[in-house]
């Protein structure tokens, strides 16, 4: 099986064309990007609002729990039945799993800013929008990036399901391989997804470090 996988990687034809590895990788990243971006657009303002005002925490916890409990494959299948084949059903499923970690990161980051610092900001004459932009978000950045990192990893891992409804991405190798009992090809998909997730995680880790100037200064 491992030999079959290595043979697949070694074959030049598998690296070219619309169903080549680079193309599948590109599709996979594209679905993931769309899903995380859409989830961020929803989760970011909600997280900032709840973190800044402190209202709606019960809603936050229960909504997160419901979203986390949803089975991605089930949601996608249901949406396909309702809407037909297309990019939207898998994307919707991916967005739903990306929302809880982003929401949690943004909320926790903003809510955990030292209340005395926020009080000081207000007392010296900052309005709420400035408090959020100049004080709370910069200080929340490490936790926000942490949430984003979690969301990206989960979405990259789960984006394989798009292939289940005849879309591209690295999941193609897995579902095609399963259909053909070609476990070498299944392994190709699994290894590529895992590798992609690890590389992204590493890059995001470096980015998180680079974006915390105050933290870096303290470490020195």
């Amino acid at each position: 099986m491992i030999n079959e996988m290595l043979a697949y990687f070694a074959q030049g034809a598998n690296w070219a064309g619309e169903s080549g590895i680079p193309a599948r990788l590109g599709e996979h990243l594209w679905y993931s990007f769309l899903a995380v971006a859409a989830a961020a657009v929803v989760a970011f303002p909600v997280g900032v609002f709840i973190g800044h005002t402190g209202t709606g925490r019960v809603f936050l916890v229960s909504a997160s729990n419901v979203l986390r409990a949803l089975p991605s494959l089930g949601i996608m299948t249901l949406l396909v039945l309702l809407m037909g084949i297309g990019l939207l059903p898998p994307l919707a499923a991916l967005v739903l799993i990306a929302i809880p970690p982003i929401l949690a990161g943004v909320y926790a980051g903003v809510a955990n800013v030292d209340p005395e610092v926020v009080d000081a900001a207000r007392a010296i004459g900052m309005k709420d929008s400035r408090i959020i932009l100049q004080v709370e978000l910069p200080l929340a950045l490490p936790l926000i990036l942490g949430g984003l990192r979690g969301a990206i990893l989960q979405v990259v891992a789960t984006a394989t399901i798009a292939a289940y409804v005849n879309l591209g991405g690295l999941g193609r190798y897995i579902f095609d391989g399963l259909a053909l009992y070609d476990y070498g090809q299944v392994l190709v998909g699994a290894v590529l997804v895992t590798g992609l997730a690890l590389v992204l995680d590493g890059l995001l880790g470096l980015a998180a470090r680079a974006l915390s100037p105050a933290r870096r200064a303290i470490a020195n």
Partner: protein
Amino acid sequence: MITFESVSKLYPGGTQAVTDLDLQIATGSFTVLVGPSGCGKTTSMRMINRMVAPTSGRILIDGQDVADIRAVTLRLGIGYVLQNAGLFPHRTVLDNIATVQRLLGLSKAQARTKAHEAMERVGLDASLATRYPAQLSGGQQQRVGVARALAADPPILLMDEPFSAVDPIVRLELQQEVAHLQAEIKKTIVMVTHDIDEALTLGDRIAVLAPGGVLHQYASPIDILARPATDFVASLVAKDRGFRTLSFETLTGLGTTTLPVPGPEGLIDMSALAPGWGVRVNRDSGTAAWIDADGAVFGPHPLVPADASLRTGLDAVLASPTSAALLVDGTGNIGSYFTLADLGPLLRPNEQARA
């Protein structure tokens, strides 16, 4: 002038923080709100910059109701110093101090120039400008907090227990510097503290508040000490009360003795005071050293300026091996000394206290 007009604050849940407070804080005065925790002192102060809204009553600044001023505009004109400095951990010292000017619309470069000036004013070394708050000591952080509040040169400064989180030595240093600063810049300062000693040292008017935000006395430090209006105020100032009163008494009317002419090498023969003793003055350091018959040196001892408090004069005499201290007159001339016996008539029981 900051005026509280029958101001009350009732928190939801029934806690009465401030009860019917009437207070007039003169422009340029250093007013201290003092009392135990839960006496509404911080709440009262925070109503001046609308960080807390009164349940009833009004607060006026120079006749204008603060409720009619946009909160952000109002706060930009009032400096605010917090207990733990409340600095922005993600900004450098310089940018922390420049914050208010940036909010007022100054360019980054202009704001930083002003911030450098403010750092100098509060005694912060310029090399700290690029540090982050977490890299500073508690005392330094507090100085940054004061610099941030002063940088935009607001007419009013609010200070919420600004020195309670630093160690006693740094606290004393900061208190002295704030007193100095105030003598120079003459802001209207309102400070909150639970430390009656701090209040008596720094304030020129003190408002004593009891739990529930009830004003018991609003008076000068000497009046608070000499004539506590209620049992509550009396209990607050009970410790060393008589002795502390001396801080507010002058050396006016002190009988002194003229110093003999200095002999060779500046040694002044003090045999008339104590057989065998002499004294030598060091003008550079403003101190004197006593020398006994065997040549043993005691000192340095401080010289007492003529405008010093009775407490300073008494302290100098008590610390001297001959029970005498040298007096510096208004022109810087060191021509006389006084003894414990000379202080006697000034140490009579306080007339105000008897009244």
